[in-house]
């Protein structure tokens, strides 16, 4: 076993797949950030709201006002540097920090694929993706390497595998498999899609997509690993993700997964691809193929392997934390984020906050639109940690207005996967008496199946 591990860690492979991944990842991030800016989302999502929802422990991350544009510009610049492979280490660390900072500014905008981008950027910090076919390697031929340790590419594959397999396992639930929910809600009005549109309100199709999606997520990595099924698997990847792109507003996610699965292709394939790109730029690709192998120093190797082992240990365990809580995790959303629960539920909510003076008994209701954007209201009304944080914000606001003996209650209703709306948070609980923690949230009323 020891020997096998040692042999594995000393196995080398071509650096080309990592270089291709670096280029495509950088490119996609540049496009993503430009798209975000172009769509006016910087202003709409970060600058217009007066208040932002924070991740537990990250309330110190604030939106830097107009400087947010600079933050996005810097982040985009780092992505560009990653793509061309210039000042790579600085660029990838800078990208990881700036992108993650942006994501931490407001959890209203949480998306699994933003989280994945942060994780991939973190991984890239430890991988020598600039040592092949990069400006860095072009300017300083001495750092160029044709070969790198195989585990450095496998780390990317492992990350992709974790995303897919956990996403697949999360689909193994009653609503998804037995009721074809929420896909049936989402698909039935999609009859405008060309060719297959007429099938979209057929219930067998909802089941096919539900079951097919679950099987795809759980198995695709294995078919990608095996060279004989790889082409077919990649076609499946394209079909699956482009289909989701066509049906749902999921932004850049499909493209990120498509480039992540490209890593599974053979190094010969990636070398050809780089050769082709080099040809377009009138560069002799052979200059980068010097036969040298990247040999990290023992210390560097140990530190890197140590960090990545801990990283992957966390990646394997963290998505499972929802099992530590009782109740339906779709309903309570405890341990729901950062767990690759992608497109699993349709949830709608409504929360009406009541501010009470516990001594005089005087009470009034809050108009949420006075404090939150429509998007924030939507996210807040279905997620207990948002409701608590918002209640505390309201408490501070009304205290500063001179109100005393404050209590804040919420009359809230939510509907999950087509069930009738039902009371969500205990309306008798003073939300100011509760803090957001990782402890089970006992003030969430149980989901009543109907």
């Amino acid at each position, binding site marked *: 076993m020891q020997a096998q591990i040692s042999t594995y860690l000393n196995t080398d492979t071509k650096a080309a797949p990592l270089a291709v991944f670096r280029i495509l990842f950088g490119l996609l991030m540049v496009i993503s950030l430009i798209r975000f800016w172009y769509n006016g989302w910087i202003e709409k999502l970060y600058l217009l709201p007066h208040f932002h929802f924070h991740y537990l422990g990250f309330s110190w991350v604030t939106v830097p006002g107009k400087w947010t544009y600079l933050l996005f510009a810097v982040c985009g610049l780092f992505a560009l540097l990653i793509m061309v492979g210039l000042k790579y280490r600085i660029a990838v660390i800078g990208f990881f920090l700036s992108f993650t900072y942006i994501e931490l500014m407001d959890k209203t905008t949480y998306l699994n694929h933003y989280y994945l981008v942060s994780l991939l950027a973190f991984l890239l910090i430890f991988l020598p993706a600039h040592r092949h076919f990069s400006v860095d390697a072009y300017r300083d031929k001495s750092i160029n390497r044709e070969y790198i340790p195989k585990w450095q590419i496998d780390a990317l594959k492992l990350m992709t595998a974790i995303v897919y397999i956990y996403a697949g396992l999360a689909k193994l639930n009653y609503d998804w498999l037995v009721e074809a929910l929420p896909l049936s809600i989402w698909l039935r009005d999609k009859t*405008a899609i060309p060719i297959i*549109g007429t099938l979209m309100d057929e219930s067998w199709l909802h089941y096919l997509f539900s079951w097919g999606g679950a099987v795809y997520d759980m198995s695709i990595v294995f078919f990608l690993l095996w060279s004989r099924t790889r082409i077919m698997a990649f076609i499946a990847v394209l079909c699956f993700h482009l289909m989701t792109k066509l049906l749902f507003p999921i932004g850049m996610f499909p493209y990120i997964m*498509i480039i992540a699965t490209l890593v599974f292709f053979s190094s010969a394939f990636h070398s050809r691809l780089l050769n082709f790109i080099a040809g377009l730029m009138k560069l002799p690709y052979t200059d980068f193929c010097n036969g040298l192998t990247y040999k990290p120093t023992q210390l560097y190797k140990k530190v890197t392997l140590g960090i990545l082992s801990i990283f992957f240990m966390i990646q394997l365990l963290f998505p499972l934390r929802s099992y530590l809580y009782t109740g339906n995790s779709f309903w309570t959303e405890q341990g729901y984020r950062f767990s690759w629960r992608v497109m699993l539920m349709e949830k709608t*909510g409504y929360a009406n906050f009541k501010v009470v003076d516990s001594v005089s008994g005087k009470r009034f209701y809050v108009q949420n639109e006075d404090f939150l954007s429509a998007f924030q209201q939507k996210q807040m009304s279905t997620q207990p940690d948002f409701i608590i944080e918002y209640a505390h914000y309201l408490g501070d606001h009304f205290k500063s207005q001179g109100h005393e003996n404050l209590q804040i209650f919420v009359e809230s209703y939510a509907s999950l996967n087509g069930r009738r709306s039902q009371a969500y948070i205990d309306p008798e609980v003073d939300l100011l008496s509760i803090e957001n923690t990782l402890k089970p949230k006992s003030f969430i009323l149980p989901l009543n199946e109907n």
Partner: protein
Amino acid sequence: MKASIKYIFFIAFVIVAHSCINNTEEPMFTDSFDRSEMLEFWANDIIIPGYTDYVSKLAELDEAATDFYGDSSDLSLSTLRETWLDAYKVWQAVSLFEIGKAEEIGLRNFTNIYPANIDLITENINSGASNLDLPSNFVSQGFPALDYMLYGSGSNDAVIAYLLQEEVKNYTQALITRLRDLSSSVLEDWMTGYKDEFISNNGSSGTASTDKMVNDFLFHYERFLRAAKVGIPAGVFSGNTEAELVEGRYSQIYSKELFESGFTAVQAFFNGQSYDGQKQGSSLKQYLDKIHLDNSTDLDYSESIIAQWDSAERALEDINNNFGAQVIEDNSKMLALYDELQKAVVLLKVDMLQALNIQVDFVDADGD
């Protein structure tokens, strides 16, 4: 391997082409529930007839004002007031269609923001030339400003004397002309192109007509019917009753009637009743019933919503014509009405939106 690289580029091309296609207009919608048919009914049988009536009611108001200034008397004042009320009531029926041109010009803000600001009105009257396009002048124009001018001075003689002042006359006429201009521009836009645009945008994305209209409808219901007309005077959002914030504060006796006009219009829109009341058409109710039927569940949303509104109608029955007086005499009845209206919000914003898969606002951010 060469071949597979070409293959990849082909795929890349397809992806790019695909995202380009995606950016073009939504294709035709041909569900078994036909959204186009609903949009057509809304446009042809509810919205356009509503605005047509509104425009003509404002013309009558204008005419009554001309008559009044030609021959001012108790009688011509009373006609002027009647035409004002008629137009105001029809406004309640079209107020919920803040979409297209109405949204673009901010029709509602220039028509019915209350309470009116008396100081600002007086200042505008005295200065003679005020820019009514400014947002700061929302509160010095429209029906609430006319309400003050037609009723605010007390006795009929006092009102007539006030209205006959040259500057007041000019301002009154300017306000009426402005209401006419705004409403005509909206109606004209519906007649000359926007209707087709509205009907053909029949997809199911956040920017499709159905989704936008439903959002506008809910926004109107929550903010301008439930909150402005009932909740705010009853002190729901402040803890203190605020009788002076009722709609039609100076005429006093019409606040209930105005509310009823608005509430009736909301229900008619949901139920698919044509503006003239003669026709039943495709509606949100039918859409919900269709989904209810398809899924053969016991979740009969439209029935719950209608039943809830019936409760609100019952709560309304023993409320004073003057909401302001009601709030002072016995606010619990106003609060009871508010509660019934509020319960329907949950059914509309949670159950209905989920069933129809309509996003709660036009946030176009990504999901995953």
